[in-house]
């Protein structure tokens, strides 16, 4: 279980995340949503120890994240950030193999290779495993990075806006794969999302931030209603039900 307790982070004098406490339920997809600059990515970075918090702590299995050995932590929690510019030339397979580093320290055995093969299959990359990353489209590249994280074989997978730069088809594809990871393999996914409809349709729980503060935290159906969304986005957003999914129709909403 990941527990976030009273996390605060300031950049200069400006508080970006203020006293946020959330518990991540295992075996769920939790979406972080909120307007731009709400502190979603910063929060995720602190949970994944990319960024150090000013005050507060993050606990993984009751132990402070800072106390974890970095390799052991890397076997439990993985994080993928949005900008992944790499200036070395790597093939898809080489990149995905890096996911095994916490276990293999760079010397892959047959079991590691099995994980790599599986991860690529999961992300539909097997055909292009020998292609170089710079020959791929944005969506394919994103899938390759997600495959690396899957090969890392962690209980917790944290993703920071993985749908950025992806078209609708690939966005849906990736959300479905994440759903499969949770439902079939019992993983826990924490994801920062921009589009609330993806959050509504695919996630189990939603954590909403605004101006660095936690405004809502609950099961998806508790958050996706016009009252709660008004608190988060300062907009009146009508909800329509379609095939059991709640869709937020925000395209001609009145801002308050």
């Amino acid at each position: 279980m990941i527990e976030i307790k009273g996390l605060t982070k300031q950049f200069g004098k400006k508080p970006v995340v203020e006293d946020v406490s959330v518990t991540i339920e295992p075996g769920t997809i939790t979406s972080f949503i909120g307007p731009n600059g709400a502190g979603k990515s910063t929060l995720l970075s602190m949970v994944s120890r990319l960024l150090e918090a000013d005050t507060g702590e993050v606990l993984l299995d009751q132990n402070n994240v800072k106390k974890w050995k970095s390799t052991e932590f890397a076997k439990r929690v993985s994080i993928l950030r949005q900008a992944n510019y790499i200036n070395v030339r790597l093939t898809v397979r080489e990149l995905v193999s890096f996911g095994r580093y916490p276990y293999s320290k760079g010397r892959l055995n047959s079991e590691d290779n099995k994980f790599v093969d599986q991860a690529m299959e999961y992300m539909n990359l097997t055909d292009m495993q020998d292609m170089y990353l710079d020959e791929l489209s944005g969506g394919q590249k994103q899938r390759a990075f997600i495959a690396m994280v899957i090969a890392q074989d962690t209980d917790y997978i944290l993703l920071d806006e993985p749908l950025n730069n992806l078209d609708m088809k690939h966005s849906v594809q990736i959300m479905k794969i994440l759903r499969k990871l949770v439902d079939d393999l019992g993983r826990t996914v924490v994801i920062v999302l921009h589009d609330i409809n993806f959050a509504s349709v695919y996630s189990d729980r939603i954590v909403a931030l605004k101006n660095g503060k936690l405004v809502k935290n609950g099961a998806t159906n508790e958050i996706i209603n016009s009252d709660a969304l008004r608190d988060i986005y300062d907009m009146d957003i009508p909800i329509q039900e379609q095939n059991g999914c709640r869709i937020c129709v925000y395209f001609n909403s009145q801002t308050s």
Partner: protein
Amino acid sequence: MQKNSTKLIFLILLVIICVLLYGFYDIKGGFDYAFPRRMIRVAAMIITGIAISYSTVVFQTITHNRILTPSVMGLDSMYEVVQTFIYFFAGSMSVWIINKYLNFGAAVLAMVLFALFLYRFLFRADKHPIYLLLLIGMILGTLLGSFVTFLQVMIDPVEYLGLQTLLFASFTNVKAELLYIAIGILLLSFIYGYRIMKKLDVMSLGRENAINLGINYDRMVMNILILSSILIATSTALVGPITFLGLIVANLSYQYLVTYKHSVLILGASLISIVALVGGQFLVEHIFELRTTISVIINFVGGIYFIYLLIKESRASG
């Protein structure tokens, strides 16, 4: 495409040819006299080549670019500043000069501190564009250089002579006692390098991916900065500054051996620099019979290559 092992064997053959040519060409009667001398030079060139290649490749990995090198950022000018400082404030008879180990240690310490200071800017490379960093490095180099001259003007002329031999090292004037220190340092750095090669591979994925995969990134960066400062200090103490060698060989190695593996990249870059230094020195000394040292030519070629790289990068990013 050729396999990397073939390419490396080809490079090793080239190195052997260059060393043999340099060692035996036109040696005639003076064998007993000339051969050991030539071999000392070759040893110095090999050590320098490896030290510069090694430090440049790892430095470029942690700074995530292919134009910045420790030398371009003014690290070898720092060596001159330290030595001049010691002469100026402690004098030529002080223990800081006479004890070679102490002297070397002081120089390394100062260079490491300077590198850490520089890294405070490099660390925020996303905020400062790479060109700005480069320009700052060059200006710092000029500033340090002028400052050195400034102090040198004020040093007693007799003392200055001693300083001069310390600063204007070259391949033709290698100090044998430093050669042993250099070999020792290089061996130690290999032992450390063996442990971190795979970590370096992971670090080339960027800070965030590396942390994700369990690398203690910030501490590694610190260690590598110290490592590359020590290596640059070693080569500068041995043969003086060769500003652009690292830039050329590291980039050639990236291009020739398309791989992310640092063990291969560093080996390749080292072999290329040995070919460039020994082969180049052979051509300069024996074929063209020039007085110039190879460093002058490397800086000339390196300067042109540098402009080429800059223009290429600016097109890619613009």
